[in-house]
């Protein structure tokens, strides 16, 4: 496990980033965002707001979707990440857990975990062994199922495996894309606890969630994306009090007083 660097300066710095898909469709416009070392930042927004696009811009997978960063910078620490491939992000310590888990269904649980350590190359065999121990401590269930095909795990277990696989590369910043999607409420709580635990161990988290209540309870800081632009940002507590956020993302009905005032 990498020691968290001291201080709380920004680790991930996304500055004025524009993203185009297919050189015509604008998905992000002048988006800026920072994630401090060891912090948890939530990214909220409706479907199609550009949340996944932002994660792709950081992890270097835009090209797989025929997208590209056309302006601005993405930096992690001193490493420039825009225009680089996913290997660069992984080696810089930034690893993404994809939306929908995307475990390798035909590979065993154990092989899925091993695959997570491949990005480090042969540079750190000891590091991979330590990461593996950390993952199996976090998710003892994965140890029991090591030899089973990942496709036979339940949805919650697959989410654990997807997170565990990402942790195998000992990230300093974990990008989580909708980790609660499609999970039973009990499992959502479990995953939330795991995210808290991972963060306590020193890994920063950038969390994309539709479940704004969950996201705001985990995050220190949050951004709201709307049609490709940052609409709101602030501490999680501030945003949770904002009317727009309550109405749009926390599913609160405007009460009688509000209606009277309007």
């Amino acid at each position, binding site marked *: 496990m990498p020691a968290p660097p001291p201080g709380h300066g920004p680790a991930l710095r996304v500055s004025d980033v524009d993203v185009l898909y297919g050189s015509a469709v604008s998905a992000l416009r002048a988006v800026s965002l920072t994630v401090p070392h060891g912090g948890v930042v939530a990214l909220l927004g409706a479907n199609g707001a550009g949340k996944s696009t932002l994660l792709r811009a950081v992890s270097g997978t835009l090209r797989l979707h025929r997208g590209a960063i056309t302006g601005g910078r993405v930096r992690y620490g001193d490493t420039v990440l825009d225009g680089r491939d996913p290997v660069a992000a992984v080696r810089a310590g930034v690893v993404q857990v994809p939306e929908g888990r995307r475990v*390798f269904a035909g*590979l065993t649980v154990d092989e899925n975990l091993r695959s997570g350590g*491949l*990005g480090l190359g042969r540079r750190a065999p000891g590091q991979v062994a330590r990461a593996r121990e950390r993952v199996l401590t976090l998710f003892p269930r994965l140890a029991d199922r090591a030899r089973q095909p990942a496709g036979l795990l339940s949805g919650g277990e697959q989410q654990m495996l997807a997170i565990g696989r990402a942790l195998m590369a000992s990230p300093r910043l974990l990008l989580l894309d909708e980790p609660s999607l499609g999970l039973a409420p009990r499992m959502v709580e479990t995953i939330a606890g795991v995210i808290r635990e991972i963060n306590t161990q020193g890994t920063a988290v950038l969390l994309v969630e539709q479940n704004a209540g969950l996201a705001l309870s985990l995050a220190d800081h949050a951004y709201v994306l709307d049609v490709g632009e940052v609409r709101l940002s602030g501490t999680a507590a501030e945003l949770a009090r904002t009317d727009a956020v309550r109405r749009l993302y926390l599913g609160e009905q405007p009460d009688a007083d509000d209606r009277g005032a309007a």
Partner: protein
Amino acid sequence: MTVLLATVLDGLALGAVYALVALGFVIVFKASGVLDFAHGSLLLLGGYLVAVLHGTLGFAGAAAVAVLATAAVAGAVDRLLLRRVAADPHAATVQTIVTIGVDIVLLTDLSRRLGGDLLGLGDPWRDTVRTLGPVSVAESRLAAVAVSAVVIGAVFALFRYSAWGLSLRAAAEDPEAAALQGIRTARVRTLAWCLAGALATVAAVFLAAFPAPGLDSGTGQIALKAFPAAIIGGLTSPPGALAGSLLIGLTEALAAGYQSELLVLGDGFADVAPYAVMILVLLVRPAGLLAVKGAARV
């Protein structure tokens, strides 16, 4: 009984060599989604290199150089040609057609060089025949079985245990998720092409060895028999390719060995047998013998 035994041995040897070809074909398809129609020409190139080099380098040296050179050419096809169209929405289809072009270019040039010649590869087995109990077998066939078994075993181990094998299997399932783990998918894929080229060269050596008269411009067409073997196996399954190849090899040998009893089916049924078997297998198991079953739970 003796005839049966000899025929079965023959079929196994043939099947083992087909397996080298089919395995390369399957690995390339698994890694890149491309049906490599240039596989036969790559095989011919490998054989041709052994034929022209063995005089100066000796058989072992020539075989080693040919394996490496053919691997390099196969890797270059992927890296220099196929990768250029990787951004196309129908990349795999376009790339498959590109391999047809590569096949024509390679085959035309090699045919020009070979003319009507039959080239010997200078292999150490020559036309020695051993007697194993009641049957006599060409030593080259025994070597084919032994070498193929070792090479195929090594490929399976590589596939299962090495970082490259794991990367390939992960990328074949989900290229984006693999990329997110920091797996260099393009490199993994190029290495798969290299391996296929190397395997094809080993196959070429045994296809040109006794009892075949030598290497000629038609040797590459043998790949056409490995295609049905790969398809019988399920196209993405290396063990399936092995099973399919042995089945095809045995069928072909049996059809040739019992030609006189099979005259009902016409002369030269052995040549058609691989395709007949393929059609029969696909009628019963449309996805192939060992296609990966949907282990996914949604």
